[in-house]
């Protein structure tokens, strides 16, 4: 194996590597909406009604995942249904799967794949839960959650009942699920499922909110609805799951869950879960390693913002924005609440960095839904993308804020502060709408991360990253052997020749109701070579690679034999 590695490495070194002009720390991030060119004319349909049902503004999630293993990211969109029947009575309500044909062209394969969905869909979580090498989908919704097993032949099978992941709650019936995420909380090598539930709702009991005159009815504040517990399903490794919400402690906490994100925030080798709640304190579930989770949001300082108040938590991401090796939390909220940024202090506690980072002032006017901490200009620092739009469709009648908003991009300056550069990101980035879901991944494998964003009742946006002056990059496609096959939860430390280290944790659970590319993307600025890559797999094994060239997608397989300090098997999957 060592010999094979050396040969591969030697090949890599002589392969021609396309490089762009290197200019570090540019702020010229630009996007172009290529939805039309990509033949994606999909429109999310929430069946908006004058009744202002609470479920209407809450869709729609999106997933970027490679369902057919051709090395190209495909796209799955969630969609609504007829209200109040909550059935996909017409094709316009179908969820959609688009196959990436290369060259930024896509084909609608929903029917062929059999993934049109059922009920009023909300969100989606993609991962290979059965370790068969094919990425599966879990789709959340108001009245139906669906687990689609990828058969590997371009089709999916609904295995929800068989797997036991219907999201039925003993005291509530089918829970209104918004988000979900795959993670291996017990490090047993298969992915478990955390389902995030929102609130108790039925069409018959939706109250009237807002002024009683035409056009003034509003969606109600979450305080009008009862909270729900979340659900943790343990993967038994045989296609079935067991609801361990009670024994894990997850089910003890009632909230109004929206976004979820995973990271090992305390460095104990166990994945923890952050759930942002809507107008309710956030939860940070610390994994105790014995099958139990302790909710430590208050102690950790992420339950509330420094004002001691809740915000309308929407989407979240859990990555290291300041390069200190500790994952931090970014989340979105509504106008006048600001977007919280919690910096991990490394002692089990976080600090609210909204104002010191400049985000507080810059986000005051905006409402955000899905989000992602992504290095869009490949300078080594994670920027913040926010899908913009108010929860209300008639906010202008009540306040100075707009309902339809553009997305936002906050560039990481690398000194702990962020700069709102949204208006410099190109004309297509200025499109307003009721943006909701967003997922991130490199659709054309050019090293620049793209964003796919949904908006209510309007065409989705495929935001192709066309940043001209971005730096070098590296994308890691992990394959776990002892660990879960997707390698979710693996921590990668990338050290540059300059000695600077970058840290990422593998996850698909990013933002709001959405699922991003499982591959790990690094921007490395001016450096054409990486001094070392250290991967710590779930379960604790690690492997190190030295002198790794950049500007390529590397497939890295976990070295099950040389698990500690070994080099592992890796291959140049897509050199650029």
């Amino acid at each position, binding site marked *: 194996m060592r010999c094979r590695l050396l040969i591969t490495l030697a090949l890599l070194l002589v392969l021609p590597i396309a490089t762009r002009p290197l200019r570090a720390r540019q702020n010229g991030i630009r996007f172009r909406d290529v939805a039309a060119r990509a033949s994606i004319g999909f429109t999310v349909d929430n069946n908006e009604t004058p009744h202002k049902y609470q479920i209407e503004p809450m869709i729609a999630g999106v997933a970027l995942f490679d369902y057919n293993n051709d090395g190209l990211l495909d796209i799955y969109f969630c969609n609504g249904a007829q209200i109040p029947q909550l059935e996909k009575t017409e094709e316009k309500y179908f969820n959609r799967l688009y196959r990436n044909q290369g060259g930024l062209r896509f084909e609608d394969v929903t029917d062929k794949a059999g993934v049109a969905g059922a009920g009023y869909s909300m969100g989606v979580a993609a991962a290979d839960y059965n370790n068969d090498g094919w990425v599966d989908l879990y789709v959340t919704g108001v009245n139906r959650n669906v687990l689609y097993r990828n058969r590997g032949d371009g089709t999916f099978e609904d295995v929800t009942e068989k797997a036991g992941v219907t999201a039925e709650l003993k005291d509530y019936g089918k829970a209104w699920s918004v988000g979900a995420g795959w993670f291996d909380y017990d490090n047993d090598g298969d992915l478990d499922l955390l389902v995030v539930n929102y609130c108790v709702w039925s069409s018959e009991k939706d109250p009237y909110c807002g*002024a009683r005159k035409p056009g003034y009815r509003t969606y109600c504040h979450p305080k009008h609805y009862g909270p729900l517990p979340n659900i943790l399903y343990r993967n038994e490794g045989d296609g079935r799951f067991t609801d361990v919400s009670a024994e894990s402690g997850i089910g003890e906490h009632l909230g109004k869950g929206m976004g979820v994100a995973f990271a090992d925030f305390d460095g104990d080798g166990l994945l923890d879960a952050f759930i942002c709640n809507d107008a309710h304190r956030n939860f940070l579930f610390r994994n105790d390693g014995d099958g139990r989770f302790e909710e430590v949001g*208050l*102690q950790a*300082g992420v*339950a*509330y913002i*420094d*004002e*001691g*108040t809740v915000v309308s938590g929407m989407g979240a991401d859990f990555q290291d924005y300041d390069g200190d090796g500790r994952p931090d939390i970014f989340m979105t909220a509504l*106008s*006048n609440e600001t977007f919280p940024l919690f910096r991990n202090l490394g002692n089990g*506690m976080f600090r609210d960095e909204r*104002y*010191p980072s*400049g985000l*507080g*002032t810059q986000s*005051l*006017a905006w409402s955000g839904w899905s989000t992602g901490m992504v290095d869009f200009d490949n300078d080594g620092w994670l920027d913040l993308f926010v899908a913009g739009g108010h929860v209300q469709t008639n906010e202008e009648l*009540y*306040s*100075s*804020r707009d309902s339809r908003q553009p997305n936002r991009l906050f560039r990481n300056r690398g000194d702990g502060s962020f700069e709102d550069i949204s208006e410099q990101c190109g004309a297509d980035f200025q499109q307003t709408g009721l943006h909701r879901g967003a997922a991130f991944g490199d659709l054309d494998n050019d090293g620049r991360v793209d964003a796919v964003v949904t908006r209510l009742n309007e065409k989705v946006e495929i935001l192709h990253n066309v940043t001209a002056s971005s730096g070098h990059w590296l994308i890691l496609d992990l394959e776990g052997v002892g660990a879960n096959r997707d390698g979710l939860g693996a921590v990668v430390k990338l050290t540059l020749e300059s000695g600077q280290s970058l840290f990422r944790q593998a996850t698909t659970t990013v933002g709001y109701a959405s699922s991003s590319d499982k591959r790990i993307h690094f921007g490395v600025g001016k450096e054409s070579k990486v001094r070392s890559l250290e991967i710590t797999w779930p379960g604790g094994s690690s492997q190190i690679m030295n002198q790794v060239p950049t500007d390529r997608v590397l497939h890295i397989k976990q070295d099950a034999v040389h698990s500690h300090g070994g080099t592992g098997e890796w291959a140049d999957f897509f050199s650029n």
Partner: protein
Amino acid sequence: MQLVWSCMLSRGKVSVLLFFLLSNALVRAGSPQSAGKEKRRALRLFQKGDYGKAAHGFQNEIEKGTSDTESYYYLGVSRLRSGDFQGALEALERFVKEVPESSEGWLNLGVVYFALQRFDNAIRAFHSSLQLDAEQPLANKMLGRVYVATEKHALAERAFVRAMELDRQDFQSPYLLGRLYQTVDRLVEAARYLEESARLNPNSVRAFSFLGAVYYALGRDSEAAQTLRKAVELNASSPSPDFVPHLEYGIYLQRTGHLKESVQQLRKAVALNPRTVEAYFELAKTLYRLEQLAEARKFLEEAISIDAADPRLHYLLGRVCYEQGDVQCGHRHMVLSESHRK
């Protein structure tokens, strides 16, 4: 920056603003010459602003049985102004029973109800006053304030607009309207009316203070800084300096990263009003960000001694305790924080 407003209103406390409104005079002054000796003495005390002694005088007059119904009125207003709301209530209820055609009587009674957070009674009293005299800007302003306190914002807006129509030169009505719009995030309108208030009264430190806060929320940063500085400057030359401009400027400086300057302003706010929780809270928050944990803790404890039921104070104090390594203290205040939210 809307904490001060919401705190004043939602808890219905008799705030500085209440007296600011009432300073226009609620009193249909009687003539000292036409009254008995005791009453004349009490009226003189009243006019000098010695309300405690005046109340005593009117009380004596009533107990001797030599008084007319007007003494109840003055007794009520004297008690109101000396902070004895329950006593004021008894006197003014008696007065309006005897003289139901007195618009001033109803107006003052409404103020007492408002001070006692009996908002429904207050609304009825102000309406009674306005039925007798629809042209009173003050009754409309007070009615609007009750509606703000009860979160009936559309009705509050209507009352403030009416007050403004009745007196175009009164700076208070646009001020109240601007503050209302600020509270409900109608920031463009808030700016417009606070600007109008500041134009009508170029010495209004509160109008400039909140206008600065609105500019900040609108992203008009340089105007925010300029306006807040102006409020602080005006305040410096005021015979009775107000804590609000220092609080608002301190918050602005804190949010824009000027932490040391923020501490200076917030210390002034605390010194000017040692009973305001908001100033302690913001000062503690800034000190926490500066990692001056011991002092942050001290100010939070001070704030909690004023309002032990405020969950925000316990939450921040819990955070400070945790960061100081005092886990027990941290847990205790987190528990208190959560219990006060229920």
